[in-house]
């Protein structure tokens, strides 16, 4: 607990430094993006993968990750305005897993929103999840920022409705990250039309933050670090100068800038995933901008997992990765270079050996 208090003091200190350092470019931001926004913070927890063993038993390791994130988020000062849960609350989408996960999330003392993950969806196509958490996609406004939540883990109808003899098999096929029987994620036409109509009501100067489970960019298809209609969704966001997309699914630190859109991934609370460059047979398009998280040490069961708090100064995201067995990382939009950058490690001369993935 002491360590964590220290982290929060660091966070507040860092936030102060960030504001001071950004003083000059901030005026540029104001010109480009309209009125200064109210400052606020929110927390983001993702990919808990609560996994039912039998009876009342769940996989202990994954439980501990979510319990810790919830407990720590409850201690945040300043108090976050809300918490976003980024999807994959369950491992195989069962009522037991979703109930157990929802019970743990219910201990959050903040307003909580949820994103749909494929592990929540493909057993009953999100029916029970909806009973617990509400609609699969929606938007809300908060202190001058327009937030959008998409269900980005849909796929082709033939795969979803016609290919598998049972719902359980469909779930198992999609649950295997590297399973060649899986299918690419997509937002789909219906939801894109909804997004078009939703954004039509929003002033172009309004900062947009879009949450999805999968990255709305094409990084590596083999593990669905991918959204099939990413370009079409990006096109809908193009008229807005200040857009941030925050996604889960990848269980690792990623960030990128594509035109007007700043991308940030979030950590999992359950377990880390390798970077695609660690798979010798993979052809990937990982962002060159990303300074990777440290390689995971399996002897520390929470290493390379974590959660994040996010500072929404000026409508841009400062992502503070709270890493359980590592030094925290901060990735924030740099108005001078117009891209997200790690506050410590972005300069290649500052990289450290654990960031070398192979």
């Amino acid at each position, binding site marked *: 607990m002491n360590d964590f208090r220290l982290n929060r003091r660091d966070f507040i200190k860092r936030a102060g430094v960030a504001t001071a350092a950004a003083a000059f470019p901030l005026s540029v931001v104001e010109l480009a993006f309209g009125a200064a926004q109210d400052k606020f913070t929110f927390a983001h927890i993702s990919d808990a993968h609560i*996994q*039912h*063993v039998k009876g009342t*038993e769940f*996989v202990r*390791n994954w439980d501990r990750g979510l319990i810790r994130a919830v407990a720590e988020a409850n201690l945040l000062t300043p108090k976050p305005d809300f918490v976003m849960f980024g999807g994959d609350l369950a491992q195989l989408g069962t009522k037991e897993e979703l109930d157990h996960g929802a019970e743990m999330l219910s201990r959050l003392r903040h307003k909580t929103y949820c994103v749909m993950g494929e592990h929540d969806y493909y057993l009953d196509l999100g029916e029970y999840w909806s009973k617990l958490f509400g609609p699969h996609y929606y938007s809300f406004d908060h202190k001058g920022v327009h937030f959008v939540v998409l269900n980005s883990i849909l796929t082709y109808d033939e795969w979803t409705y016609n290919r598998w003899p049972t719902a359980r098999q469909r779930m198992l096929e999609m649950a*295997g*990250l*590297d*399973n060649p029987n899986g299918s690419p994620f997509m937002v789909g036409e219906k939801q894109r039309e909804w997004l078009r109509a939703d954004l039509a009501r929003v002033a172009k100067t309004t900062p947009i933050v879009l949450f999805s489970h999968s990255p709305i960019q094409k990084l590596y298809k*083999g*593990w669905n670090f991918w959204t099939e209609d990413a370009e079409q969704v990006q096109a809908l966001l193009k008229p807005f100068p200040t857009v941030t997309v925050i996604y889960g699914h990848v269980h690792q630190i990623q960030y990128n800038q594509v035109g007007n859109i700043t991308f940030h991934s979030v950590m999992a609370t359950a*377990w*880390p*995933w*390798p970077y695609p460059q*660690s*798979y*010798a*047979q*993979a052809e990937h398009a990982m962002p060159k901008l990303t300074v990777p998280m440290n*390689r*995971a*040490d*399996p*002897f520390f*069961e929470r290493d390379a997992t974590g959660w994040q708090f996010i500072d929404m100064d000026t409508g841009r995201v400062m992502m503070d990765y709270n890493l359980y067995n590592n030094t925290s990382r901060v990735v924030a939009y740099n108005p001078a270079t117009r891209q997200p950058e790690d506050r410590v490690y972005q300069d290649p001369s500052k990289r450290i050996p654990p960031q070398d993935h*192979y």
Partner: protein
Amino acid sequence: MKAITVTATLGAVLLAGTIIGFLAQADEFTKKDQERWQNEYMAVVQKGRALWTSAELGTKGVACAQCHPNAANTHPETYPKFQQQLGRVIALREMINWCIQQPLEGKPLAFDDPKMIALESYIAYERRGVRMDPGKH
């Protein structure tokens, strides 16, 4: 007459066997042989992949592939190496057993268990083309 025929046939079979024995030279093989041997290996790789993605090795439903899709982040080309967390040089199979015992909460495999060989075969196959780099952390 019948007995003589049988003897002659047996003799011919033995002679043929001897000739074939001589013909099967140690260093001569065909593309067909290579294909067969590769298929034998791939059959074991497939068994390894099946184990990798199943809950069979553990007791809690957790599979190797959950943390290691396509066996990534296993670095077989770096073993044997000094496993800093254990403080000694180990072979990859010891880390395989560590994972079976810790995150999977299963029983370790004998080092020559066909399942262990299958897991090693699968891990190595996914890493094909990467140069050997023993000792690298």
